[in-house]
């Protein structure tokens, strides 16, 4: 095994579409959790709403992808309003409970056999992304090699990456201007002290709702990139289940909660780390260092979730502000 090759492939994975859509979900969570102090545990639900919103019009009603885009965003706004209306006046844990439940329930509903004509049931939806790939300007693989670093991506990947990272940059720019505006300062003060905000005559509830909607739309767009990158939408726990939400949380916390570039830096670091351990275990198995009775080949995928759990616990305990964050920004609590 060559450790440099493994590092190279990990860094390559760090730029893949997966990192782009996790970044988008984390940018949304940064607006929720980092700037407003909202505990949204259902970002995967927003991603699912976006992904299905994009895919259903194309699959079931033969509309164009643009219609799908509009549907996905509208649906995520409605989803946010539905979840926020009963919970945002209450203590922070109620939002957490309702969002994690709603995200799973949405997945159960689209998986239902009775809706197979519309949502594809448990098989999900395929073949809605042809319009997207027909617009692909790349004809051959794109990238370069530098020593052990190999940044060559297939034309398909490169096209998703161009669009995905383009949207990520737009999202960062949006966050920058929004958070440095008077509106953003109110959001941050909701995080710091909601009662103070209220006593200054601001409607804290309305600001929380706006934050939930905007962050949710980012999650939904992330879900659309996921759907386009995979060419399919699947109601599987790995794709759109709660662990997806917490992958984005881990990325956000690593990069720094309440930091502009935190979600992107964290996603890159975390996805690279996961890819590294994945490849490392596989090559260690190939070398015979790890016995198959300890980790069977089909159990390698479990490692990333074990790491995810440990990372969340250790980060929140010892460095809740992440690698680049400052402790002062993360003073939030109930």
């Amino acid at each position: 095994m060559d450790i440099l090759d493994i590092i190279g492939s990990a860094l390559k994975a760090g730029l893949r579409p997966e990192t782009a859509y996790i970044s988008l979900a984390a940018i949304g969570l940064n607006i929720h959790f980092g700037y407003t102090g909202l505990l949204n545990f259902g970002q995967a639900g927003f991603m699912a709403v976006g992904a299905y919103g994009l895919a259903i019009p194309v699959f079931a009603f033969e509309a164009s992808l643009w219609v799908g885009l509009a549907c996905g965003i509208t649906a995520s706004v409605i989803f946010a309003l539905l979840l926020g209306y009963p919970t945002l006046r209450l203590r922070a844990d109620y939002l957490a409970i309702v969002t994690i439940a709603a995200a799973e329930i949405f997945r159960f509903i689209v998986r239902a056999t009775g809706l197979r004509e519309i949502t594809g049931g448990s098989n999900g939806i395929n073949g809605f992304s042809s319009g997207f790939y027909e617009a692909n300007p790349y004809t051959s693989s794109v990238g370069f090699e530098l020593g052990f670093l190999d940044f060559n991506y297939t034309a398909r990947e490169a096209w998703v990456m161009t669009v995905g990272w383009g949207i990520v940059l737009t999202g960062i720019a949006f966050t920058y201007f929004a958070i440095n505006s008077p509106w953003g300062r109110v959001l941050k003060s909701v995080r710091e002290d909601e009662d103070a905000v209220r006593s200054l005559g601001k409607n804290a509830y309305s600001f929380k709702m706006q934050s939930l909607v905007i962050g949710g739309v980012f999650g939904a767009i992330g879900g659309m990139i996921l759907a386009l990158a995979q060419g399919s939408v699947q109601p599987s726990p790995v794709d759109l289940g709660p662990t997806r939400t917490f992958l984005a949380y881990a990325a956000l916390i690593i990069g720094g909660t309440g930091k502009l570039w935190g979600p992107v830096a964290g996603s890159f670091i975390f996805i690279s780390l996961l890819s590294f351990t994945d490849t490392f275990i596989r090559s260690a198995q190939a070398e015979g260092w790890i016995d198959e009775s300890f980790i069977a080949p089909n159990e390698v995928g479990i490692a990333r979730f074990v790491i995810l759990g440990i990372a969340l616990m250790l980060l929140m305990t010892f460095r809740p502000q992440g690698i680049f964050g400052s402790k002062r920004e993360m003073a939030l609590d109930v």
Partner: protein
Amino acid sequence: MPKLAKNCIAGLALILVLVLSFPIAVLAQSEQAITGTLRVEINEERTPVAGVDISVVQGGEEVGVETTAEDGTFAVTVPGDGAYSVTLNTDSLPEGVTLQADATETLEVRVESGNNKAVIYRLVSGDQGETSAFSDQAGKVARLVSNGVRFGLIMAMCSIGLSLIFGTTQLVNFAHGELVTFGAVMALVLDNGTIPFLVAAALALALAAGFGAANDLVIWRPLRKRGTGLISMMVISIGLSILIRFVILWQVGGDRQAYSKYRIQEGIEIGPLSLTPRDLIAMAISIVVLVAVAYMINKTKFGKAMRAVADNRDLAESSGINVQQVILYVWVLGGLLAGLGGILLGLDQQVRWNMGFDLLLLIFAAVTLGGLGTAYGALVGSLVVGIFIELSTLVVAPELKSVGALMILIIILLVRPQGILGRAERVG
């Protein structure tokens, strides 16, 4: 920073304990198969159907053919991820046994690598089946209510722990579902034939109580001492939940697995209901345990101390109650009740690595409905949610029944956020 190092070591120790607490290596699931059991109801007894050919086809190519064994089971090994179509050869069915009228002989399934996929064929014998006693609407409602009560009682045992932990520490423990899974899985691992199932279950309960205590001693007590905030703790509990869940998946595999005992039992007719002895005993155990817990909360010194801590922690502490000890006991109780709930649930629906996490969403609905932090609220909420989701299958497909629980959750937050039995106080 020695303290930091100490906490790190303690954390690693917990993970180690978690891994080592699987004393017997469970068969590693290294491939995937399409599995199922063919049974038919003859004279109200579920009889296995042997000698039926099941073939699996992918993309027009035959992957495998198997014949059901004496106990009606079959398993066709498939190469990996993907969509397969499974066909039951109706010619090979024994005489008098047919597929249910609305069922098809070919099913399309999707297999995930490493996970077995179970398929279900509904068989009927002779010409009954169309006009069975169950089509009677009143009987159906009674049956659903009894299922709901049974499930609600099991859920109540799991919810009370969550609610008491919230009451004493204000922590919403997202890793509570894993306490449920832990109890069920421990009983499964110990139930390997060398000791009777009931002994295995008792040992599993002891381990579950110890696991609850370990949760508090290793993670939550040090965090409380550090002054970690509640939001951070919630995120940590999610991390813990993911960690435990996937360690369990790694150790026991992704299949549903049944205990060795009490698998198939003949029902006892009570009016329109048909309950197996297993169901009746599970309900009796739940009721006895719940009454005992209620007695303990109301009448014993520990119960009084617990209520005092929940009511006003500082006041309790200054009047001489050892708050940390009370919280530890609450965790032991929570682990024990959740473990018992897990074993009973495992008897009812088989054991699966994510059974507790799936239940957690319903538990949340139940405790919010009853009032977060109140033990009776958890009981009432669980029964209401249990009955409601069963009854909701009268109008929606059974696979959507947990949607009703979410509806309850949202409606109760809109109209009475403190829950049915919660005290009216500001929760915003």
